[in-house]
């Protein structure tokens, strides 16, 4: 019997070795131009990546991070090397620039730079537009099922309504969620007044009985499947929810909107900075850009691309003027940030 197992083990190892050998055999040996792209999964449709590779002969290595901060950690440890082009959220870019991990763009290489919608330029993280190219914007919104929710939701405060007991799903970003409590108190998302944040924490605890799920990913699934009757979602999730269930309604909270921008930058020691610029030039082309935004489902940050976006998606991808009055969540003082994290954890414990 022992012999049998030994034979099996040997056979298994043999097969595995063969597979590995076969696999490493198919490695490309030729030296070629490359681009190391570092962002979340699903930020580009495959045809756009393929199109770039075919046109330029540059091979794209697309790798992913989980949180913005993972990316920052990686850049810190590699001193801004290893990666050529990063796409991340606004607030983390501010920090990366502060840490000297980002290089200035050579705009002579990006003739399409002028296609960018100026609404998204001159923002707090890059006031002079020297470092970044915006790539999509978003606003968390409330989506609800009018057939189940007995009233019209118009603002964040409606999520506190007693009739929504155990039937609300929310995203898991604490600055955003603590922020909506602040908004119901007519305060700014970015307040650094500790007593105000403390009060928001108390307000948030009253929301706890209504919370069924807190989840940062695929939050739209809960409203699509009917697990919850109202959900507070990111833009791309809002669009997915509406695509799957046209009967759902969207509310633009009257207390004021939160607003976020994603942008691309080239790390300070990027090994292939030229290729990164080429890629930026490519994705800023109006027709390519339109394809990208239709795919990722965030608001289009490319003015010239708007006319290329298909009619049925125009409504959801081209931002309404009113929306731009939204407030961007920015980096705040350490004490305030820490308090945010604390009231958030207390809120979660209350939900249990």
């Amino acid at each position, binding site marked *: 019997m022992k012999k049998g197992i030994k034979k099996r083990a040997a056979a298994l190892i043999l097969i595995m070795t063969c597979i590995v050998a076969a696999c490493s055999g198919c490695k490309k040996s030729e030296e070629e131009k490359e681009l190391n792209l570092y962002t979340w999964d699903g930020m580009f449709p495959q045809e756009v990546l393929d199109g770039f590779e075919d046109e330029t002969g540059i091979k794209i290595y697309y790798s992913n991070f989980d949180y913005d901060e993972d990316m920052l950690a990686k850049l810190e440890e590699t001193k801004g090397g290893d990666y050529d082009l990063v796409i991340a959220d606004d607030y983390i870019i501010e920090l990366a620039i502060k*840490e000297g991990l980002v290089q200035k763009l050579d705009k002579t290489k990006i003739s399409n730079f002028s296609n960018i919608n100026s609404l998204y330029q001159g923002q707090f993280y890059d006031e002079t537009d020297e470092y970044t190219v915006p790539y999509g914007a978003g606003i968390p919104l409330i989506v609800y099922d009018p057939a189940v929710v007995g009233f019209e939701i118009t603002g964040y405060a409606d999520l506190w309504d007693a009739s929504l007991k155990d039937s609300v799903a929310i995203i898991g970003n604490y600055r955003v969620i603590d922020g909506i409590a602040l908004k119901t108190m007519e305060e700014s998302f970015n307040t650094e007044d500790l007593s105000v944040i403390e009060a928001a924490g108390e307000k948030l605890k009253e929301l706890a009985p209504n919370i069924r799920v807190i989840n940062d990913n695929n939050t739209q699934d809960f409203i699509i499947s009917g697990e919850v009757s109202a959900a507070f979602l990111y833009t791309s999730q809002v669009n997915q929810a509406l695509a799957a269930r046209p009967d759902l309604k969207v509310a633009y909270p009257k207390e004021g909107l939160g607003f976020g921008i994603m942008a691309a930058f080239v790390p300070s020691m990027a090994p292939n900075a030229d290729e990164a610029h080429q890629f930026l030039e490519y994705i800023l082309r109006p027709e390519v850009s339109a394809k990208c935004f239709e795919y990722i489902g965030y608001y289009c940050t490319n003015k010239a691309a708007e006319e290329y976006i298909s009619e049925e998606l125009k409504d959801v991808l081209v931002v309404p003027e009113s929306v731009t009055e939204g407030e961007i969540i920015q980096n705040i003082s350490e004490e305030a940030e820490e308090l945010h994290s604390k009231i958030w954890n207390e809120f979660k414990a209350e939900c249990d």
Partner: protein
Amino acid sequence: MTMKKRKNKSIYLMLVPIYAFTIIFVLFPILYMILLSFLSKAEVWGVVKEVTLDNYKKITEPLYIKTFLDSIKLAAISTGFVVLLGYPFGYFMAKLSKKWKRRMMELIMVPFWTSGLMRLYGWIIVFRSNGTLDQILMGLHITKSPLKLLYSYEAVVVGMIYALMPFMVLSVYSSAEKMDWTLVEAARDLGATKFKAFITITLKQTMPGLLSGVILTFVPSMGMFFVADLLGGNKIVLVGSVIQEQLTKGRNLPFAAAMSVVLMLLTTMLISLYKRVTGSGEMEGLV
């Protein structure tokens, strides 16, 4: 004499890889983590060289103490159920015929080789409102409205048991498999009851397996949090999720390190307590 010397030398050689690897790639990183836990957070990222005990002081805040207690509670409950369900499985599995032993082993391993996340999503599809289970029950007119099974403490415990069970089964199995069954028969012949024979002979012989099973279950369950996040709807705050949040959104490396150090010490203490209570301190094993 010379013979003996040579013998020992070759045995020491066997120990070189594990000593070297553990010291370079485990001890060194752990020491680094401990060092971090005594430093202060830099403004944007990393640490500044200012020695402080603040990170440990912060852990004594009621919120974090509760988090630790909740994590221990969940790990203990899950491990308890895993022992109750997994021990008999491993034990009975060892009594199967040779052919079935092999098949069982394969049946246990195959799901393990698919993505753990995918398996959790499979459960979510089954248990969510209007999911597979609800549809079956409502189709059979057993229930009228969707049962809200997910996003509760029970769902998390079930998920933990599911994720950790194979470790227990395999450990118990490998120790029951080499058990000397004649001893059990002898005890029975000498008039011991089934129960007595089990306690005095079987349990004693399978103790190393049970012990390593408990360790392989309890230890990871202390730091595990993705099950609680997915099946519990993120509503249970565990040490693992606090550490994650401090490292990411909080960018507070030193505090996360301090929490990890405490978690490490706590787990170690609980394991050695467990060994003392079960009287397995003499045995080969951890700590």
